[in-house]
C-alpha cells in the first residue's frame, strides 16, 4: 500500500475509534449533570446514587476519549503536512480555539468534579459538572466548524502568490451553514448514544431485580429519563439530518448521489431502501427497492424535484477541474448511509417499545432488557457510519470545492499527505495505534461491564477513629 492509503487507513481507524467514546461523553455528561441537579433540588438519595454510578461510567469512558483526542490534534501535522500547510491559516484557528475554550474547561472541571465532592460547596460542585458538559459541547462545535470547512469552505480565499488558503472572515467560517446543521445532528446523535446507554443499563438492572425496592427506586427514574432522552434526541437527529440532506444536495451533490447510488439525474427520484448486487457507477447490475419520490423530498422538500446523478456530477466536475475520478466509493457511501439511518431508527424503536412496555407503572420485562442490551451498540455504530459516510462521501477531495461560491479553495486528499513520511513509517504507527487501541478497547469494555453489573456501590462509611480534622478524601485514585 502507498503511504497515502496507509495514512488514510490510519486516519480512519484512529478517528472512528476516538468517536466511539466522544458521543457517549457528549451525551452522558449533561445527563449526569441533570441527575445531580435533581438530587440537589430534591435531596432524593436515589438521584445521588445515579449521579455517582453513571458518573463513574462516564469517567471510564471519558479517559479514552481524552487520550485518543491527543492523536487527533497531532496527526494533521504528522500525516497530512501538505494539507496543514495549505489550510493552516484557516483550519488551525478553530483547533486552537477548541483547545483554549473547551479542552481547558472540560479537563479542569472534570478534576474539580471528581475530586471535589467533599471540598466544594454543593452548589459549586454542581456547577462543575455543568461546566464539564458545556466544555464537551463547545469542543464539538469548534471541531465541527473545522470539519465543515473541509466539506464546504466559506469565509476563505485563495492566495495565488503563496498557493495557500487564507482566512477571510472568522465569523463567516464559524457560522458556516454546514456547521450549524451538523452540530445539532452530532449532538443529538450523541444523546441517542448516551440515552440508549442509560436505558440499557437501567433496563438490565430493573429486569434483573424486579422485586428489589431499592433497585426499582434507583433505576426506574433513570429509565424514564433515558426514554425521554432517546425520543427527543431521536426526533432531533431525524430533523437535523433532513436539514443536512437539503444542504448537502447544494453543497456536495456528488455525496448525495453516491449515498443513493443514483447514476443518472432523475426527476421525482425515489429513496433506495436497499440494493441487491454490486453497486458501481455503471448502474447495470443494481436492483434497488425504492420508495418513489422520497429522495426528491429529502433533497428539496418536493417529491417531484430533480436530483442529480453520479455520472452527471462527474461530467460537470471533469469539465471544471480537469480529467479525474471524482466519484467516491459507491458501495461504502451507499451502505454506510443506510446503516447510519437504520441503526439510528432501531434505537428510536427500542425507546418506543420501552415507553409502551412500561406504561402506567408496568415493570420492565426481561425481553426488553435483553433487546436493550443488544441494541445499546446500535447508536454507537450509527455515529461511526455517519462519519464514514460523510468523510468517504467527500472523496477524492479533502477540501471539497464550494459550488455555491468561489471554488478556488480546494484540495484533493492525495495532495494533502506528508511527502516526507514514508510508508514504512506509517506502517509503524498504523500497527502501533491499531494494537494499542484494540488492547485498550478490551480493557475498557471489561471494566465498563464490570461496573455496570455491580450497580451503585454503597457510600464508604466514614469511621470515627480518623485522625482529628483529617478525614479520608471522598474520592481518591
Amino acid at each position: 500500500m502507498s503511504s497515502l492509503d496507509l495514512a488514510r487507513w490510519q486516519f480512519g481507524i484512529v478517528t472512528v475509534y476516538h468517536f466511539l467514546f466522544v458521543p457517549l461523553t457528549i451525551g452522558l455528561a449533561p445527563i449526569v449533570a441533570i441527575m445531580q441537579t435533581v438530587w440537589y433540588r430534591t435531596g432524593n438519595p436515589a438521584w445521588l446514587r445515579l449521579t455517582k454510578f453513571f458518573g463513574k461510567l462516564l469517567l471510564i469512558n471519558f479517559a479514552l476519549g481524552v487520550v485518543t483526542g491527543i492523536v487527533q490534534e497531532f496527526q494533521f501535522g504528522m500525516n497530512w503536512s501538505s494539507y496543514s500547510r495549505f489550510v493552516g491559516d484557516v483550519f488551525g484557528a478553530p483547533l486552537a480555539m477548541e483547545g483554549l475554550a473547551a479542552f481547558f474547561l472540560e479537563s479542569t472541571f472534570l478534576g474539580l468534579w471528581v475530586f471535589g465532592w467533599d471540598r466544594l460547596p454543593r452548589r459549586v460542585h454542581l456547577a462543575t459538572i455543568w461546566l464539564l458538559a458545556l466544555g464537551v459541547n463547545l469542543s464539538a462545535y469548534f471541531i465541527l466548524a473545522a470539519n465543515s470547512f473541509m466539506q464546504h469552505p466559506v469565509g476563505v480565499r485563495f492566495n495565488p502568490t503563496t498557493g495557500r488558503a487564507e482566512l477571510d472572515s472568522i465569523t463567516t467560517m464559524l457560522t458556516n451553514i454546514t456547521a450549524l446543521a451538523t452540530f445539532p445532528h452530532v449532538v443529538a446523535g450523541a444523546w441517542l448514544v448516551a440515552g440508549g446507554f442509560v436505558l440499557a443499563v437501567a433496563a438490565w438492572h430493573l429486569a434483573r431485580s424486579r422485586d428489589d425496592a431499592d433497585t426499582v427506586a434507583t433505576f426506574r427514574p433513570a429509565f424514564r429519563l433515558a426514554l425521554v432522552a432517546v425520543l427527543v434526541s431521536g426526533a432531533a437527529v431525524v430533523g437535523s439530518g433532513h436539514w443536512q440532506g437539503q444542504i448537502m444536495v447544494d453543497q456536495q451533490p456528488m455525496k448525495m448521489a453516491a449515498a443513493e447510488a443514483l447514476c443518472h439525474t432523475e426527476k421525482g427520484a425515489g429513496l433506495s431502501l436497499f440494493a441487491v448486487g454490486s453497486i458501481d457507477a455503471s448502474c447495470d447490475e443494481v436492483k434497488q427497492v425504492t420508495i418513489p419520490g422520497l429522495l426528491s423530498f429529502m433533497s428539496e422538500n418536493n417529491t417531484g424535484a430533480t436530483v442529480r446523478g453520479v455520472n452527471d456530477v462527474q461530467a460537470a466536475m471533469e469539465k471544471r477541474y480537469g480529467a479525474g475520478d471524482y466519484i467516491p466509493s459507491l458501495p461504502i457511501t451507499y451502505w454506510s448511509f443506510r446503516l447510519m439511518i437504520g441503526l439510528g431508527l432501531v434505537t428510536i424503536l427500542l425507546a418506543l417499545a420501552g415507553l409502551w412496555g412500561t406504561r402506567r407503572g408496568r415493570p420492565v420485562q426481561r425481553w426488553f432488557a435483553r433487546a436493550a442490551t443488544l441494541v445499546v451498540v446500535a447508536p454507537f455504530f450509527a455515529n461511526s457510519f455517519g462519519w464514514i459516510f460523510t468523510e468517504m462521501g467527500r472523496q477524492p477531495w479533502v477540501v471539497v470545492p464550494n459550488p455555491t461560491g468561489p471554488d478556488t479553495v480546494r484540495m484533493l486528499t492525495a495532495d494533502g499527505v506528508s511527502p516526507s513520511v514514508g510508508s514504512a513509517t506509517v506502517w509503524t504507527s498504523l500497527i502501533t495505534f491499531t494494537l494499542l487501541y484494540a488492547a485498550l478497547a478490551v480493557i475498557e469494555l471489561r471494566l465498563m461491564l464490570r461496573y455496570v453489573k455491580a450497580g451503585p456501590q454503597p457510600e464508604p462509611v466514614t469511621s470515627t477513629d480518623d485522625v482529628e480534622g483529617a478525614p479520608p478524601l471522598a474520592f481518591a485514585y
Partner: protein
Amino acid sequence: MQLTASRFATIAGLWIGYFFLEGFDFGVGVLLPVLGRTESDRRVMINTIGPVWDGNEVWVLVAGGATFAAFPEWYATLFSGFYLALLVILVALIVRGVAFEYRGKVNSDRWRANWDRAIFWGSALPALLWGVAFANIVAGVPIDKHHEYTGSLLTLLNPYGLLGGLLTLGAFTLHGAYYLALKTDGSVRTAANALARRLAPVVVLVAATFLLWGQFRDGRPLSWALTLLAAGTLVGAVGASWKGREGWAFALTGTTLALTVASLFATLYPNVMPSSTDAAYSLTVDNASSTDYTLKVMTVVALAITPVVLGYQAWTYWVFRKRISNHHIPAAQSLVPAARSSAEPSGTTAS
C-alpha cells in the same frame, strides 16, 4: 512583524505553561517506583496530581493547536519531521492517561503494578523526548527547500539532543520531587526531600553543560541573560530545598523551567526551525506564519480566554491546596467482584 513576534512569544508561553505544570506531574510519574515503596505511598503520590494532571496536559494540546493556527509551516514541518518521536510521545501519553483513571478501578495487585509501570514509562519517555525535540529544534535539523525534514529518528538522537532530553527528564523529576515535598506529609515527603538533595547536583551539572553548550554556539544577549537567570533560580531552588523551604524550591524549579524555555525560544528567534542543510531553507517567524488577519483573530481570542483559564486553573490548585498523607487515603474504592452481594442494601448513605 510585531504580530508574528508576539505570536511567537505566545507559543513560548504555552510551552512554559506546559513544562511548568506537566513537568511536575511527569516528575511524580517518574518517581512513582522510586519513592512509592508501599501501595499507600503510591496512592498518596498519584493523588497529589489526580485532580490536575489532565488540565496540565491540555497545555501541550493548545501549544500544538496554536502553532497550527499561527505558524502552519512550522506545525507541518515539525510534526511530520519528528514523526516517530511524536508517535512514542503519543503512545506514552495515551497509556499514562488511561493508567491514572483505571489503576484504582480493580482491586488487584497485578492490575495496579501494570498500571504503575505504564505511569512510569508514560511519564519518563515524554519527559526525555520533549527535551530531545527542543534541543534539536534550536540546534537545527536537516530541512530542504520545500520545508520538508530530510533526517530520520536517529538524526535527533545526537549528543546535544540527548543531553537536552536528560535535562528535561532530570529537571522534571527534580521539579516533581519538590512538588511532592510540598504537597504531601509523612513518608513520601521525607523520601522526596532526601531524593531531591541527591538528584539536585546531577541536574545542575546537566543543565549547566546543556545551556552553556547552546549559548556558546548560538547565544545572544537576551538568551544569555535568560540562561543565567535560569541557572540562578536553579541554584536558588537547591538552596531553598536544603533550608527546608519546600514552596520556594518548587516555585524556583518551575521558574528555572520557564526561563529555560524562554532562553531556548530567544535563541531561536527569528527562526522557528533553523535548517542545518542551508540557512536559506530555515523556517522563520515570517515565512512560517499565518496571515496578519488570522494572527489578529488568534490574539484577540487568546487575550479574551487565557486570563479566565489561568483563573480557574489557579483556583483548582487553591481548592486542592492541602497536603495529602497516608491517612487521607481511603480504602480501595474499586470493585471486589466477589464481595458484591445483592442482598446488601445500597441505602446506607443515610449514616
